[in-house]
């Protein structure tokens, strides 16, 4: 409880410090929103022109995109500092985190907030709302519960991958580019029904890089598109749980790799 308090205080401080620059906050959020909606525009134009993609209709793909983007927004709001982690190690900031009585990882994650995450969240919610009426889903409590769990689970999957890859920096210092590439793969391949991918790619993006668990698998369950899925429906339903499991594994991996830390300064 005491720890949670400290985390919230740290997160609040980074939020307030960001809002000191109000003009930048507004342009970053609006910029983030336009950025994401332009990305969606590409998908929209293709699906609108050809009426469907891999058997999914426009509202279904909009829904998938909305789920992926909302997860990404949650991920970005909480874990985005992993993208700065190399710098934290190289300039010796990590030494300071080690002497404080709190998990260094939490301190890394709360050191700054990237406000454009609100643009992602806003964009994701707009798409979800817009699509929710067009898709053929009975919005029962179970369906809403699945959606909420899936969106959080998706953020955990992305977080797990970024934390695990970031842990490599304890040994190799400069691994940012790997994370950027992984992030890009999540961001672009996660928006499409996997049915259009070649078989091998479907499996790679499920078991090698768990992109499928962010949005495609849970969305298939909610939209009742599980016929012909490349994995069992049970696995698709379990996506949120897998998100939690992957995140725990990533934390273990982080702890292991952090033993390799060598201070940059003296």
């Amino acid at each position, binding site marked *: 409880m005491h720890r949670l308090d400290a985390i919230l205080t740290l997160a609040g401080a980074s939020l307030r410090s960001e809002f000191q620059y109000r003009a930048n906050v507004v342009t970053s959020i609006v*910029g*983030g929103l336009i*950025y994401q909606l*332009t990305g969606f525009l590409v998908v929209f134009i293709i699906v*609108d022109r050809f009426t469907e993609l*891999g058997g999914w209709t426009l509202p279904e793909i909009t829904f998938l995109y909305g789920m992926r983007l909302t997860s990404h927004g949650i991920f970005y709001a909480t874990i985005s500092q992993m993208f700065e982690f190399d710098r934290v190690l190289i300039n010796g900031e990590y030494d300071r985190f080690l002497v404080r009585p709190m998990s260094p990882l939490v301190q890394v994650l709360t050191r700054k907030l990237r406000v454009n995450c609100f643009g992602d969240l806003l964009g994701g919610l707009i798409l979800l709302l817009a699509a929710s009426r067009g898709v053929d889903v009975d919005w029962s409590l179970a369906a809403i519960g699945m959606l909420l769990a899936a969106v959080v689970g998706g953020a955990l999957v992305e977080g797990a991958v970024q934390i695990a890859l970031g842990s490599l920096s304890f040994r190799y210092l*400069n691994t940012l*580019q790997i994370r*950027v590439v992984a992030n890009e793969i999540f961001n672009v391949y996660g928006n499409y029904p996997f049915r259009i991918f070649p078989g091998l*790619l479907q499996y790679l993006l499920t078991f090698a890089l768990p992109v499928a668990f962010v949005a495609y698998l849970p969305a298939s369950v909610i939209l009742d598109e599980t016929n012909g899925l490349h994995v069992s429906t049970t696995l698709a339903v379990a996506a949120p749980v897998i998100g939690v499991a992957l995140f725990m594994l990533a934390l273990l991996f982080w702890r292991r790799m952090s033993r390799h830390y060598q201070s940059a300064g003296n």
Partner: protein
Amino acid sequence: MTIRANLPAWVEIAKANIRWQYMYRFNVLAGIVLTGVTIYLLTIVWKAAFGSQSEVDGIALEQMLVYLTIANLQLYFLRPEIAGDIQARIREGQIGFDLSRPASYPSQLFASAAGDMIGLLPMVVVAIPVAFVLGELRLPATPADGLAYVASLLLAWVVAVELNMLIGLVSFWTLEMTGFQMVYTLVGNFATGALIPLWFMPDAIRAVVQVLPFQAIAYVPVSIYVGEPATGAIGSALALQLFWAAALVLVIRFVWSRAFRHTVIQGG
């Protein structure tokens, strides 16, 4: 006269930027991976979209795939970074040195962009095989198309640099432009036609994109390459690019004359 006097300076600026590209070779390689990721995805998606049709709106699937591959491949080489450089120079106060040089600041920026591009050129050796494996590469239909494409590619580079420079000059008024730059990058990418060629854009969107200069960066040259020139004929397509290249020179001159008066040199 001024060209001869300034030439050695421009050459040195370009050389310095060539070395920079080599220093950042890991970023440069990651850029190729990202380009490959995009090309592969677009290939899959458009194949799925075409489905069993071999031709849509008079565009063959193969033409479409070659278009997407070439467009994204060349976009990798036509990504000037001067906007970020201008911002950094102003933030650090070094802009004062740049402005005190006899060569005009925009001409220095052009030289550095040229250096960036030349430094990237050796990556063709990596980028083309990547694009070949992940996308669809074919030679242009006729040698004439190929020659016109090369000319068009050069003009595309000029327009890309000009637009990037204009965005960068905004930092003379405000340094808070992360959001602004994000929008420019993606809206710009979209409007070049590299993700969706203008043929397949809905009428309303195409009407907007057609009056913007971005199409000169990807759509115009690549549509020449695949034998479907933007305006119907190669000559008028090149003229369109030439128009934008020239018009943007005037815009840059105007904006620069304003920006210069607005210069704030940070630090002492």
